[in-house]
């Protein structure tokens, strides 16, 4: 790499020297011609000065101009001052002529080369500005992070006139994509690479990260270069990398937004569908259950009555399910509006206990609530539903002579509700999933009327909407305890 650069440098110097020598040869030829025709030799001196100017114009760097000046004057001295074909000068005026011409030619040659250099620089700057502008505008047009990467390698390759690679950071699929722009080729190669290949690609190259450590999009690899010109251009690279990063930021953000939007639409669609179905099931179910009930009292034959009763019970079970699905979709949609009011705990729990007694059969229902009037801000209907769901659950998991206890107590700024039963308790394996939607305990799966596991997830959703939490644990004496609390802002229920 470095050797190549040195060779290139040497070849460059040789070429420049060749230019110097050929121009001087030409000048000498013309000067000799002028002399042989018989014009004054001073004209030859002017031709030499002109040749120095030409050298300065066609070479890079003032070294060659100075070299040409010295060589010209030496030539002039050799060919045109007496004694001829020596470097000795007799005439003092010739010395003055030669020195003045030397100084003049050195000055003009350096001036010319400086001017040339300046105009070259200006040109470069202009083209750099143009490039930056082009890069910015093509980055702005790119859509998607990978498109930004493709545009970036193309632009950098154009700018630096070399091969450029961009290796993207691993995304979810753990494969990394490589964007490759070859010098002078407008096509971008895109391929999937593994870590070993990445090592190969990035070795002996300058590796520039895009983005910061916490959020790195990938790296840009460019060949290491020694040439002055390339280094000049590489000064632009950090600025371009910044542009690339902000374009990638922008695209990543909009991609994420798009994904979130799609997910939201999907959720909404699912919720609407469920709700529409449940809604349309409701009225016919009410019709079926009512009709079955009328049949139950009208039918004379006991067998027929049993059949009607079967319809009635199944329909009620189905209705319960539909209502649960409706409540849950409503809560999950965030469409659940809490109608909070200060409610007396004894009223809410009283209703729950009333319900418990209705479904308990032989089971013993014990309620234990504070003597004092206790007011808590809540949506009474929903908290009643929470209690009913927990009581239903307790009744379902106890023997027909079991005990269900409903207790309310307070600590500093919480009011706790607990529902304890003396049933089989909660299996350790079930514990983490109890409150998940559609979870049904292992032992209950076989039985036909086990429900589809929405009761407890509704409980959790309602309690959480109130800023409370719900807990489940096993009683040491056997059975399960479900507890939840509601936050109490002011307990000023007492008279």
């Amino acid at each position, binding site marked *: 790499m470095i050797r190549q650069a040195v060779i290139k440098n040497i070849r460059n110097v040789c070429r420049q020297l060749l230019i110097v020598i050929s121009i001087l040869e030409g000048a000498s030829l013309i000067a000799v011609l002028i002399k042989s025709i018989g014009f004054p030799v001073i004209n030859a001196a002017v031709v030499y000065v002109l040749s120095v100017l030409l050298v300065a114009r066609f070479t890079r760097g003032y070294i060659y101009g100075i070299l040409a000046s010295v060589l010209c004057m030496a030539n002039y001295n050799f060919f045109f001052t007496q004694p001829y074909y020596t470097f000795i000068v007799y005439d003092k005026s010739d010395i003055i002529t030669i020195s003045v011409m030397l100084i003049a030619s050195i000055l003009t040659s350096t001036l010319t080369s400086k001017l040339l250099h300046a105009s070259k620089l200006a040109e470069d700057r202009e083209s750099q500005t143009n490039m930056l502008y082009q890069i910015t505008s093509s980055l702005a047009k790119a859509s998607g992070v990978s498109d930004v990467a493709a545009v970036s390698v193309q632009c950098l390759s154009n700018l630096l006139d070399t091969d450029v690679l961009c290796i993207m950071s691993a995304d979810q699929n753990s494969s990394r994509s490589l964007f490759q722009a070859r010098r002078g080729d407008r096509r971008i190669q895109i391929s999937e690479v593994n870590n070993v290949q990445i090592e190969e690609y990035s070795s002996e190259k300058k590796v520039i990260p895009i983005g910061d450590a916490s959020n790195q999009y990938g790296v840009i690899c460019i060949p290491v270069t020694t040439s002055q010109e390339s280094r000049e251009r590489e000064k632009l690279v950090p600025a371009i990398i910044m542009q690339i990063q902000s374009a990638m930021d922008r695209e990543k953000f909009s991609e994420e937004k798009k994904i979130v939007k799609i997910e939201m639409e999907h959720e909404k669609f699912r919720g609407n569908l469920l709700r529409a179905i449940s809604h349309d099931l409701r009225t016919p179910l*009410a019709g079926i259950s009512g*009709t079955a009930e*009328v049949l139950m009292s009208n039918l004379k034959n006991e067998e027929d009555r049993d059949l009607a009763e079967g319809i009635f019970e199944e329909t*009620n079970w189905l*209705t319960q399910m539909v209502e649960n699905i409706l*409540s849950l979709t409503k809560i999950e949609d965030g469409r659940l509006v809490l109608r909070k009011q200060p409610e*007396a705990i*004894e009223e809410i729990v009283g*209703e729950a206990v009333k319900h418990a007694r209705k479904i308990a059969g032989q089971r013993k229902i014990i309620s234990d609530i504070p003597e004092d009037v206790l007011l808590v801000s809540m949506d009474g209907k929903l908290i009643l539903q929470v209690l009913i769901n927990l009581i239903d659950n307790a009744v379902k998991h106890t023997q027909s002579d079991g005990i269900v206890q409903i207790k309310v107590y307070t600590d500093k700024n919480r009011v706790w509700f607990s529902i304890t039963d003396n049933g089989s308790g909660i299996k350790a394996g079930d514990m983490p999933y109890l409150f998940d939607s559609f979870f049904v305990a292992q032992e209950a799966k076989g039985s036909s009327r086990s429900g589809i596991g929405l009761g407890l997830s509704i409980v959790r959703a309602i309690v959480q909407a109130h800023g409370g939490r719900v807990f489940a644990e096993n009683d040491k004496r056997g059975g399960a305890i479900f507890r939840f609390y509601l936050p109490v802002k002011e307990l000023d229920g007492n008279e």
Partner: protein
Amino acid sequence: MNNDRLFLIVEDDKQIRSFIRASLENKNYKTICVSTGMEALNIISSNPPDIVILDLGLPDMEGIEVIRRVRTYSLVPIIVVSARDQDREKTDALDAGADDYLTKPFSINELLARLRVILRHSGTLASDTPEAFHSGDLVVDMDKHQVYLAGKEIHFTPMEFKILVLLVKNPGKVLTHSYILRVVWGSYLDSDAQSLRVFMANIRRKLQEDPSTPKYIITEVGIGYRFADE
């Protein structure tokens, strides 16, 4: 013996309409069935029924609108039927003048029980209840502002007495929180909802009520209260 009673069923679902009708006709009540609010209003003004059973979700107009219009000229008892998540509509309907409500799906026996309660009191206006009220062990003397439980006088504060009288005068009828507040307090603030709960709790204690087995005051969670009438 029931055949002089006329029931109007306003319900757009055919199946629900027909089973309500069937169960009422089993009890020898006469029925008229309609499926829209406009038809209901026409019947109520041309052929006044004894009770209206009104579904809140009608195809042509809001059930509440029907109640409001009926109440401008008639005191016919209205029992409202609604879906479970229509709590607000339910409260509004009661405030607009409905007498009671049922949530779909409802049990026919429950409906018949409610209808019996309403029939028992229809024709007697709240204002012409007698000076003394008896229910079980409870006696409320409206004139003397005295309350007796099992023969023993119980002290009631004026506000508690006002609430009790309001409930007692409307046996079986659901009184919404806001209705009670409006009648007892005149105008009210949101914070009064809290006071109402406390007054009710005190009344309950004085009547030795267990909220889970109420004898007199039934809580309608999220809606209001009802005085038991059995």
